[in-house]
């Protein structure tokens, strides 16, 4: 298992990948991707028990589902750097005939992706279905999922959240990326959601807070706690407080970079703030 420094090194490399991917095609979503970089790196390099090779059924390993599919750049970078497909393929992000579609999909057969996402609010249901099948298969591995906070405005989430507790689905850890931003502004301005913690608790979930969701040690500690709470008859939710655009100073604490690519100059500034540790693709 990699040590914290190795995870940190991978984190800056993944940020470089994200910036270069969206810059090249002048499209994509860097803000949320950068905010969740530490989480993805921790998940794939440390937290999940996963096989080296990919098969759709994923029996005998932990599974991950990304519900807020627009943060595909971080997903693709971490999948590639975790060995699911060649790192060079990141060059094809959003280009015609690519397996790295704007939003993740199984349609082109990209290893590591188990369901399409992008149209928001569908990931809870899919992840819960996979968790039900793990139980039927007597597979003791866990299902992880990630959702945006703004995404919780979609009603289907709450159908799934209600179902999970009612059916004691306790082999799932669903993480909410609480960055407080969405396309039109802060979540508090667009549609204030009140206490997300209180909502999940009212729906019967066990809730774990990770106050600094951009700190690898905090993520590892919080996720270990979440894991220890599985198997107790209740689904587990992690509230991961992140900073959108983290690691690139001019992209931080704003929704402006939700779905906007940096220009040449901005790219250079961003890259200068993130060391090339493992070699650019």
């Amino acid at each position: 298992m990699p040590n914290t420094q190795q995870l940190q090194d991978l984190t800056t490399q993944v940020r470089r990948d994200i910036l270069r991917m969206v810059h090249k095609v002048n499209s994509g979503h860097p803000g949320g991707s950068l905010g969740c970089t530490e989480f993805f790196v921790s998940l794939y390099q440390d937290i999940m028990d996963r096989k080296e090779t990919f098969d759709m059924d994923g029996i005998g390993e932990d599974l991950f589902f990304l519900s807020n599919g627009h943060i595909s750049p971080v997903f693709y970078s971490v999948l590639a750097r975790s060995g699911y497909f060649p790192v060079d393929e990141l060059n094809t992000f959003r280009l015609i005939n690519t397996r790295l579609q704007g939003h993740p999909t199984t349609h082109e057969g990209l290893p590591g992706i188990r369901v399409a996402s992008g149209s928001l609010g569908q990931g809870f249901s899919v992840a819960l279905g996979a968790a039900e099948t793990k139980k039927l298969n007597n597979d003791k591995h866990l299902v992880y999922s990630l959702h945006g906070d703004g995404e919780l405005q979609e009603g289907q989430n709450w159908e799934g959240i209600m179902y999970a507790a009612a059916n004691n689905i306790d082999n799932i850890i669903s993480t909410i990326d609480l960055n407080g931003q969405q396309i039109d502004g802060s979540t508090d301005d667009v549609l204030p959601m009140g206490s997300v913690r209180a909502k999940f608790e009212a729906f019967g979930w066990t809730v774990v807070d990770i106050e600094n969701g951009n700190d690898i040690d905090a993520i590892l500690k919080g996720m270990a706690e979440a894991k220890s709470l599985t198997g107790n008859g209740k689904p587990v939710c992690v509230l991961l407080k992140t900073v959108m655009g983290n690691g690139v100073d001019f992209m931080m604490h704003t929704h402006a970079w939700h779905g906007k690519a940096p220009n040449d100059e901005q790219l250079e500034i961003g890259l200068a703030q993130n060391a090339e540790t493992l070699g650019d693709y």
Partner: protein
Amino acid sequence: MKTYTNTGNKDTRSGFGAGLTELGQTNENVVALCADLIGSLKMDDFKANHPERFFQVGIAEANMIGLAAGMTIGGKIPFTGTFANFSTGRVYDQIRQSVAYSDKNVKICASHAGLTLGEDGATHQILEDIGLMKMLPGMTVINTCDYNQTKAATIAIAAHQGPVYLRFGRPKVANFTPENQTFEIGKAVRLTEGNDITIVATGHLVWEALEAAKELNEKGISAEVINIHTIKPLDDKAILDSVSKTGCIVTAEEHNHLGGLGESVARVLAQHHPTPQEFVATNDTFGESGTPAQLMDKYGLNMDAILKASEKVLKRKN
């Protein structure tokens, strides 16, 4: 002319229930989900026999579709059950992204399709579902005609890899196809041979087409009746072979003429063998309350409507 005997009216949804019961015994990967309509969908037996493989999701169809998509990951074959309206229009985007685009092996089983659920009215009827489902890339669309065929289709779709929309209905209708038949997805069934007119029908309209063919036969007109249980993929060859002999065609379905079987047939004909065609289908309208028979009469979806359409298309023949 070959004739068919109604062995006793039965509802197609009960055929689905019987098929699901059999699958429960023969295929341990089959799981079933229902959105608070177990009795209406005839899923009681499966639930009683296999409680661990039955999932009551409550009145939450969007979640049901997503759960089903997720359950396929790890090898399960989920059958979802609710009314056709709530199986399609209500959850179109969930089916589109989580099932069809993701190529998940989900069987969307939809009862109370068309007008014939009757008195509940237009909110619970649907005349657009075939169109909605056939437009989704990779989706197989099946509309069965009677109890026996619905049972056979239910069993057959479990062995088919990929998403399927299986459409059936509420009322008790003639049961006339063979018991324990083999159901071949995408293969039309020629019920009668004829030379003067082709009648292609799906679902509840198949029996009406056979009744119409009998009437036509008495007038000296020989009708070839084809049961198109699979609307997608369509058996182009069966249709083209028939019209190349008869030279005219009537399509009949319990669905809007926009987006239904008739339009699929028209596309095949326009490309390969332009042929006069008349449509027995609803005319861009919602349904309403009434008995099934009253509704089928008012909206022109019965034997009489097929006879009228036949008369019209025969006149258009060169």
